[in-house]
């Protein structure tokens, strides 16, 4: 039934490795970008707050496929921005990480902002009374507590990101979804078996993420 896997024609592990790499790079990028965005969204400067609000609402509500294709067709094919990649393979990977980071960062930002709301107002007021600047209040007092409150929602974002990497196939990044298209093209007689293999692959990637981070969320949460 699954004999198409034995032909040696398909590098299943290699394709899923690219998926994992895409996920890790984009996760790191969107965690940083999301935190910065969250900081801007709660900053005392109205103009910066406005910028972050507009960015989050525009990017969050744009279909990811449109964003990623826009990166490739707009930035790379039309404007010639390749992010230092020499081949389409390198460029495509970097553009995909850029698109995924821009998109996932908005969800990280909103999760963090909800975490910031769980920190009692007295904490920030006390910190300000000690003479700490806004940046110090945010990084020393508020964000550390906020992060511990939002591990579980961030796990959801990470799981969604893992699956969203499949959109990178739209610009030719050789990850799992692209290999699936190739296999369906060649093995159309085993359509559902091919699909089951890839569904199983993603379950293997995302289930442990959810279990691990769910456990961490329970351990780390600030008891109030």
């Amino acid at each position, binding site marked *: 039934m699954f004999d198409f896997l034995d032909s040696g024609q398909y590098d299943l592990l290699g394709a899923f490795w690219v998926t994992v790499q895409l996920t890790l790079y984009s996760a790191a990028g969107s965690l940083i970008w999301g935190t910065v965005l969250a900081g801007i969204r709660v900053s005392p400067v109205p103009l910066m707050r406005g910028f972050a609000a507009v960015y989050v609402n525009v990017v969050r509500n744009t279909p990811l496929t449109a964003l990623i*294709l826009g990166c*490739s*067709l707009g930035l*790379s*094919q*039309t404007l*010639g921005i390749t992010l230092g990649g020499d*081949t*389409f*393979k390198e460029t*495509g990977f970097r553009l995909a990480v850029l698109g995924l980071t821009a998109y996932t960062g908005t969800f990280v930002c909103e999760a963090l902002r909800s975490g910031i709301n769980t920190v009692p107002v007295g904490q920030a007021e006390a910190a300000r009374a000690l003479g700490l600047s806004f940046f110090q209040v945010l990084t020393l007092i508020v964000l550390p507590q906020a992060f511990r409150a939002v591990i579980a929602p961030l796990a959801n974002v990470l799981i969604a990101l893992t699956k969203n990497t499949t959109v990178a*196939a*739209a*610009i*030719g990044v050789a990850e799992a979804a*692209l290999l*699936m*298209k*190739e*296999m*369906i*093209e*060649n*093995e*159309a*007689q085993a*359509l*559902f078996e091919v*699909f*089951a293999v890839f*569904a*199983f692959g993603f*379950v293997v990637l995302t*289930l442990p993420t959810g*279990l691990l981070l769910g456990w961490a969320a329970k351990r780390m949460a600030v008891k109030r």
Partner: protein
Amino acid sequence: MKLYKAGAAVAAAVALALTATACGGGSKSSGGGDSAAGGKKIVIGIKFDQPGVGLKTPDGKFTGFDVDVATYVAKELGYEASQIEFKQAVSSERENLISNGDVKLVVASYSINDKRKEKVDFAGPYFLAHQDLLVRADETSITKAEDLNKKKLCSVTGSTSAQNVKTKLAPEADLQEFPGYSECLTGLENKAVDALTTDNSILAGYAAQEKNKGKFKLAGLSLSNENYGIGLKKGDKDLQTKVNAALKKMVADGAWDAAVKKNFGPANYKNEPAPQITEGS
């Protein structure tokens, strides 16, 4: 507790696989047959997105060589043009559309090969296409497949043409894969890619489009042989014989030549003569 979690994981995976299977198998419709109440109809699967081959125009009409062949064959089977219902047949779904009975025939740049014959039968072939390259009109540096190793190429994600490039034709070529050919044309026009590769019939359709006239040309390399057949339900010898007879008649009475000229002509495309029918009787 641990056992319960592992069990839940397995159950989830199985449930996913089952639902996936269900959505394919569950859609038994009466399409493709003559059973529709009030006048008989025939459902034919074609491509909706390949100019020159099978295209659904914005005003809801269908054009292309496959459409002309489908219309001719349907007429020979006893259906007027108004009794044909065209249904989109995406490459990966063609086998299932036929075996589920959603369509009676698939005429959708459908290359005959052994893997596909495990699930469906073919009539024909009615057309011989080759994998070829579409390049900018002023391109002269590509004359053979090896030239591609230093070039930037574009094709459709997972397609046979893209796989041919990666495994056989030019493994060192820089290959960009997009979901559709239209995206590749953007890069080709902006010189981000040097060539677009797929069957020459499809390329000719793009080159012949009004908005692309004079911008692109076919390189004229025959990189593979693609025998297009008409897909039909496995084991339906009666239908296969009738379709083959219709194709023979189409070639004999000149309708085949006319259809080729009409759909591929403007691209300065030298078509192969009508192939011998090899499938079935």
